[in-house]
Protein backbone atom coordinates (compact mmCIF):
# COMPACT_ATOMS: atom_id res chain seq x y z
CA UNK A 1 0.00 0.00 0.00
CA UNK A 2 1.62 3.21 -1.15
CA UNK A 3 0.86 6.70 0.04
CA UNK A 4 -0.07 8.59 -3.19
CA UNK A 5 1.54 11.83 -1.97
CA UNK A 6 4.89 10.17 -1.28
CA UNK A 7 4.63 8.32 -4.59
CA UNK A 8 3.95 11.57 -6.49
CA UNK A 9 6.90 13.29 -4.81
CA UNK A 10 9.25 10.48 -5.80
CA UNK A 11 7.97 10.35 -9.36
CA UNK A 12 8.40 14.11 -9.76
CA UNK A 13 11.90 13.81 -8.31
CA UNK A 14 12.73 10.98 -10.71
CA UNK A 15 11.47 13.01 -13.67
CA UNK A 16 13.55 15.98 -12.49
CA UNK A 17 16.81 14.05 -12.10
CA UNK A 18 16.44 11.62 -15.02
CA UNK A 19 18.18 13.80 -17.62
CA UNK A 20 21.19 14.65 -15.41
CA UNK A 21 20.93 18.40 -16.13
CA UNK A 22 20.50 19.27 -12.45
CA UNK A 23 23.70 17.37 -11.60
CA UNK A 24 25.59 19.05 -14.44
CA UNK A 25 24.55 22.46 -13.08
CA UNK A 26 25.52 21.49 -9.51
CA UNK A 27 28.84 20.08 -10.75
CA UNK A 28 29.66 23.28 -12.63
CA UNK A 29 28.76 25.32 -9.54
CA UNK A 30 31.06 23.24 -7.31
CA UNK A 31 33.85 23.54 -9.88
CA UNK A 32 33.30 27.31 -9.91
CA UNK A 33 33.72 27.34 -6.12
CA UNK A 34 36.87 25.18 -6.39
CA UNK A 35 38.30 27.44 -9.10
CA UNK A 36 37.65 30.47 -6.90
CA UNK A 37 39.41 28.78 -3.97
CA UNK A 38 42.36 28.02 -6.24
CA UNK A 39 42.46 31.59 -7.56
CA UNK A 40 42.47 32.96 -4.01
CA UNK A 41 45.44 30.78 -3.13
CA UNK A 42 47.59 31.94 -6.07
CA UNK A 43 46.49 35.50 -6.89
CA UNK A 44 47.97 38.52 -5.07
CA UNK A 45 45.32 39.75 -2.62
CA UNK A 46 45.56 43.40 -3.69
CA UNK A 47 45.23 42.65 -7.42
CA UNK A 48 42.26 43.30 -9.71
CA UNK A 49 41.71 39.62 -10.56
CA UNK A 50 41.49 38.69 -6.91
CA UNK A 51 38.68 41.25 -6.47
CA UNK A 52 36.96 39.89 -9.56
CA UNK A 53 37.01 36.37 -8.10
CA UNK A 54 35.59 37.70 -4.81
CA UNK A 55 32.73 39.34 -6.74
CA UNK A 56 32.13 36.20 -8.80
CA UNK A 57 31.97 34.13 -5.61
CA UNK A 58 29.80 36.65 -3.72
CA UNK A 59 27.24 37.19 -6.50
CA UNK A 60 27.66 34.29 -8.92
CA UNK A 61 27.13 31.53 -6.37
CA UNK A 62 23.82 32.86 -4.90
CA UNK A 63 22.51 33.71 -8.39
CA UNK A 64 23.19 30.16 -9.62
CA UNK A 65 21.58 28.69 -6.47
CA UNK A 66 18.39 30.74 -6.77
CA UNK A 67 18.03 31.00 -10.54
CA UNK A 68 19.42 27.56 -11.46
CA UNK A 69 16.10 25.67 -11.20
CA UNK A 70 14.41 28.33 -13.38
CA UNK A 71 17.18 28.09 -15.98
CA UNK A 72 16.72 24.34 -16.12
CA UNK A 73 12.95 24.65 -16.48
CA UNK A 74 13.34 27.21 -19.29
CA UNK A 75 15.95 25.07 -21.05
CA UNK A 76 13.74 21.99 -20.88
CA UNK A 77 10.67 23.84 -22.17
CA UNK A 78 12.49 25.67 -24.94
CA UNK A 79 14.70 22.95 -26.38
CA UNK A 80 13.84 19.58 -24.85
CA UNK A 81 10.05 19.40 -24.74
CA UNK A 82 9.90 16.52 -27.24
CA UNK A 83 12.26 14.42 -25.11
CA UNK A 84 11.34 15.58 -21.59
CA UNK A 85 7.64 15.98 -22.20
CA UNK A 86 5.52 18.88 -21.11
CA UNK A 87 4.45 19.53 -17.54
CA UNK A 88 2.77 22.47 -15.88
CA UNK A 89 3.33 22.48 -12.14
CA UNK A 90 0.78 23.71 -9.64
CA UNK A 91 1.45 27.19 -8.26
CA UNK A 92 3.21 27.07 -4.89
CA UNK A 93 0.55 27.20 -2.16
CA UNK A 94 2.87 29.25 0.05
CA UNK A 95 5.66 31.02 -1.87
CA UNK A 96 7.20 32.36 1.35
CA UNK A 97 7.78 28.88 2.72
CA UNK A 98 10.84 28.37 0.51
CA UNK A 99 12.29 31.74 1.51
CA UNK A 100 11.78 30.78 5.14
CA UNK A 101 13.50 27.45 4.64
CA UNK A 102 16.47 29.13 2.90
CA UNK A 103 16.67 31.61 5.79
CA UNK A 104 16.56 28.85 8.39
CA UNK A 105 19.24 26.90 6.47
CA UNK A 106 21.48 30.00 6.32
CA UNK A 107 21.08 30.57 10.08
CA UNK A 108 21.84 26.87 10.70
CA UNK A 109 25.05 27.14 8.64
CA UNK A 110 26.16 30.25 10.58
CA UNK A 111 25.33 28.58 13.93
CA UNK A 112 27.20 25.44 12.86
CA UNK A 113 30.25 27.56 11.99
CA UNK A 114 30.08 29.26 15.40
CA UNK A 115 29.73 25.87 17.10
CA UNK A 116 32.65 24.44 15.09
CA UNK A 117 34.87 27.47 15.72
CA UNK A 118 36.76 25.90 18.66
CA UNK A 119 37.61 22.91 16.46
CA UNK A 120 40.56 23.06 14.03
CA UNK A 121 39.77 24.39 10.51
CA UNK A 122 40.05 21.03 8.82
CA UNK A 123 36.96 19.74 10.60
CA UNK A 124 34.87 22.42 8.89
CA UNK A 125 35.89 20.81 5.60
CA UNK A 126 35.06 17.38 7.00
CA UNK A 127 31.60 18.40 8.15
CA UNK A 128 30.96 20.15 4.82
CA UNK A 129 31.76 16.91 2.98
CA UNK A 130 29.57 14.80 5.27
CA UNK A 131 26.73 17.36 5.14
CA UNK A 132 26.86 17.58 1.33
CA UNK A 133 26.91 13.80 1.09
CA UNK A 134 23.86 13.53 3.34
CA UNK A 135 22.07 16.17 1.25
CA UNK A 136 22.83 14.23 -1.95
CA UNK A 137 21.35 11.07 -0.37
CA UNK A 138 18.17 12.81 0.79
CA UNK A 139 17.61 14.80 -2.42
CA UNK A 140 18.55 12.16 -4.97
CA UNK A 141 16.98 8.91 -3.78
CA UNK A 142 18.60 6.91 -6.59
CA UNK A 143 21.66 4.62 -6.61
CA UNK A 144 23.86 7.14 -8.40
CA UNK A 145 23.10 9.76 -5.74
CA UNK A 146 23.95 7.28 -2.97
CA UNK A 147 27.32 6.77 -4.65
CA UNK A 148 27.91 10.52 -5.05
CA UNK A 149 26.87 11.15 -1.42
CA UNK A 150 29.21 8.45 -0.13
CA UNK A 151 32.16 9.82 -2.15
CA UNK A 152 31.46 13.36 -0.89
CA UNK A 153 31.38 12.20 2.73
CA UNK A 154 34.54 10.09 2.36
CA UNK A 155 36.38 12.94 0.61
CA UNK A 156 35.36 15.37 3.37
CA UNK A 157 36.53 13.00 6.10
CA UNK A 158 39.73 12.20 4.18
CA UNK A 159 40.55 15.89 3.89
CA UNK A 160 39.78 16.38 7.59
CA UNK A 161 41.96 13.46 8.71
CA UNK A 162 44.78 14.66 6.43
CA UNK A 163 44.62 17.93 8.40
CA UNK A 164 44.89 20.07 5.31
CA UNK A 165 44.46 23.83 5.68
CA UNK A 166 40.89 24.94 5.01
CA UNK A 167 41.65 26.61 1.62
CA UNK A 168 43.35 23.48 0.25
CA UNK A 169 40.74 21.24 1.83
CA UNK A 170 37.86 23.13 0.20
CA UNK A 171 39.73 23.19 -3.10
CA UNK A 172 40.04 19.38 -3.06
CA UNK A 173 36.54 18.78 -1.67
CA UNK A 174 34.69 21.03 -4.10
CA UNK A 175 36.92 19.96 -6.98
CA UNK A 176 36.14 16.27 -6.36
CA UNK A 177 32.43 16.95 -5.76
CA UNK A 178 32.18 19.11 -8.89
CA UNK A 179 34.02 16.65 -11.13
CA UNK A 180 31.95 13.75 -9.79
CA UNK A 181 28.60 15.52 -10.20
CA UNK A 182 29.57 16.67 -13.69
CA UNK A 183 30.63 13.16 -14.71
CA UNK A 184 27.51 11.48 -13.29
CA UNK A 185 25.25 14.15 -14.76
CA UNK A 186 26.86 13.85 -18.18
CA UNK A 187 26.53 10.05 -18.09
CA UNK A 188 22.83 10.40 -17.12
CA UNK A 189 22.36 12.97 -19.91
CA UNK A 190 23.91 10.70 -22.56
CA UNK A 191 21.76 7.77 -21.41
CA UNK A 192 18.65 9.97 -21.38
CA UNK A 193 19.33 11.23 -24.89
CA UNK A 194 19.72 7.64 -26.09
CA UNK A 195 16.55 6.46 -24.36
CA UNK A 196 14.43 9.32 -25.69
CA UNK A 197 15.75 9.15 -29.26
CA UNK A 198 12.75 7.06 -30.29
CA UNK A 199 10.32 9.57 -28.82
CA UNK A 200 11.77 12.19 -31.15
CA UNK A 201 11.86 9.99 -34.25
CA UNK A 202 8.39 8.49 -33.67
CA UNK A 203 6.60 11.68 -32.68
CA UNK A 204 3.68 11.35 -30.34
Amino acid at each position, binding site marked *: *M*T*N*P*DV*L*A*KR*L*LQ*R*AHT*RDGLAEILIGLTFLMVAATQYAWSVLPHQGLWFRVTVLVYAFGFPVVCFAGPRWLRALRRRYL*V*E*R*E*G*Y*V*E*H*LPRPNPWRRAWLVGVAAVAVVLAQVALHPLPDYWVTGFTGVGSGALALVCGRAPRFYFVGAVMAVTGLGVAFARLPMENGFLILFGVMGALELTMGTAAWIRFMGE*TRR*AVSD*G*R
Partner: protein
Amino acid sequence: MGGKIARLGEVDRIIHEPARLMVVALLAAVKEADFQYLLNATELSKGNLSVHLSKLQEAGYIDIEKTFRGKYPLTICRLTDRGREVLAEYRRILKAAL
Protein backbone atom coordinates in the same frame (compact mmCIF):
# COMPACT_ATOMS: atom_id res chain seq x y z
CA MET B 1 -9.81 -0.37 14.05
CA GLY B 2 -11.06 -3.59 12.49
CA GLY B 3 -13.74 -1.61 10.65
CA LYS B 4 -11.14 0.77 9.26
CA ILE B 5 -9.07 -2.11 7.98
CA ALA B 6 -12.15 -3.72 6.50
CA ARG B 7 -12.73 -0.49 4.53
CA LEU B 8 -9.57 -1.34 2.57
CA GLY B 9 -11.86 -3.59 0.56
CA GLU B 10 -13.73 -0.49 -0.58
CA VAL B 11 -10.76 1.19 -2.25
CA ASP B 12 -11.32 2.15 -5.87
CA ARG B 13 -9.99 -0.73 -7.96
CA ILE B 14 -9.27 1.45 -10.95
CA ILE B 15 -6.72 3.65 -9.21
CA HIS B 16 -5.54 0.94 -6.82
CA GLU B 17 -3.66 -0.78 -9.67
CA PRO B 18 0.03 0.29 -9.20
CA ALA B 19 0.63 1.74 -12.68
CA ARG B 20 -2.62 3.71 -12.64
CA LEU B 21 -1.94 4.89 -9.08
CA MET B 22 1.40 6.28 -10.30
CA VAL B 23 -0.33 8.18 -13.08
CA VAL B 24 -3.15 9.52 -10.88
CA ALA B 25 -0.78 10.47 -8.02
CA LEU B 26 1.49 12.28 -10.47
CA LEU B 27 -1.37 14.13 -12.16
CA ALA B 28 -2.72 15.15 -8.75
CA ALA B 29 0.63 16.80 -7.95
CA VAL B 30 0.80 18.86 -11.17
CA LYS B 31 -1.64 21.01 -13.13
CA GLU B 32 -1.22 18.99 -16.34
CA ALA B 33 1.36 16.77 -17.99
CA ASP B 34 1.77 15.25 -21.41
CA PHE B 35 2.20 11.62 -22.45
CA GLN B 36 6.01 11.85 -22.80
CA TYR B 37 6.43 13.34 -19.31
CA LEU B 38 4.28 10.59 -17.81
CA LEU B 39 6.26 8.02 -19.78
CA ASN B 40 9.58 9.36 -18.41
CA ALA B 41 8.35 9.69 -14.84
CA THR B 42 6.63 6.32 -14.57
CA GLU B 43 9.04 4.36 -16.79
CA LEU B 44 6.12 2.34 -18.15
CA SER B 45 6.17 1.19 -21.78
CA LYS B 46 4.28 3.30 -24.32
CA GLY B 47 1.61 0.66 -24.89
CA ASN B 48 1.14 0.02 -21.20
CA LEU B 49 0.80 3.71 -20.36
CA SER B 50 -1.59 4.20 -23.25
CA VAL B 51 -3.88 1.40 -22.02
CA HIS B 52 -3.89 2.75 -18.44
CA LEU B 53 -4.64 6.29 -19.63
CA SER B 54 -7.58 4.97 -21.67
CA LYS B 55 -8.99 3.15 -18.63
CA LEU B 56 -8.65 6.25 -16.47
CA GLN B 57 -10.32 8.34 -19.17
CA GLU B 58 -13.18 5.85 -19.51
CA ALA B 59 -13.72 6.03 -15.76
CA GLY B 60 -13.85 9.83 -15.98
CA TYR B 61 -10.80 10.31 -13.76
CA ILE B 62 -8.66 12.10 -16.32
CA ASP B 63 -9.15 14.36 -19.34
CA ILE B 64 -7.00 13.84 -22.40
CA GLU B 65 -6.49 16.64 -24.88
CA LYS B 66 -4.51 16.37 -28.11
CA THR B 67 -2.84 19.62 -29.05
CA PHE B 68 0.36 21.12 -30.49
CA ARG B 69 3.17 23.11 -28.96
CA GLY B 70 4.87 24.68 -31.95
CA LYS B 71 5.25 21.76 -34.36
CA TYR B 72 5.28 19.08 -31.67
CA PRO B 73 2.08 17.12 -31.02
CA LEU B 74 1.24 16.88 -27.32
CA THR B 75 -1.19 14.54 -25.58
CA ILE B 76 -1.99 16.49 -22.44
CA CYS B 77 -3.55 14.72 -19.44
CA ARG B 78 -5.32 16.37 -16.53
CA LEU B 79 -6.97 14.93 -13.46
CA THR B 80 -10.72 15.68 -13.40
CA ASP B 81 -12.62 16.77 -10.29
CA ARG B 82 -14.02 13.24 -10.10
CA GLY B 83 -10.46 11.87 -10.23
CA ARG B 84 -9.40 14.16 -7.38
CA GLU B 85 -12.38 13.07 -5.28
CA VAL B 86 -11.61 9.39 -5.83
CA LEU B 87 -7.94 9.92 -4.99
CA ALA B 88 -8.85 11.87 -1.85
CA GLU B 89 -11.14 9.03 -0.76
CA TYR B 90 -8.42 6.47 -1.53
CA ARG B 91 -5.98 8.52 0.58
CA ARG B 92 -8.50 8.73 3.45
CA ILE B 93 -9.13 4.98 3.52
CA LEU B 94 -5.43 4.23 3.37
CA LYS B 95 -4.55 6.68 6.16
CA ALA B 96 -7.27 5.32 8.40
CA ALA B 97 -6.21 1.72 7.88
CA LEU B 98 -2.43 2.08 8.18
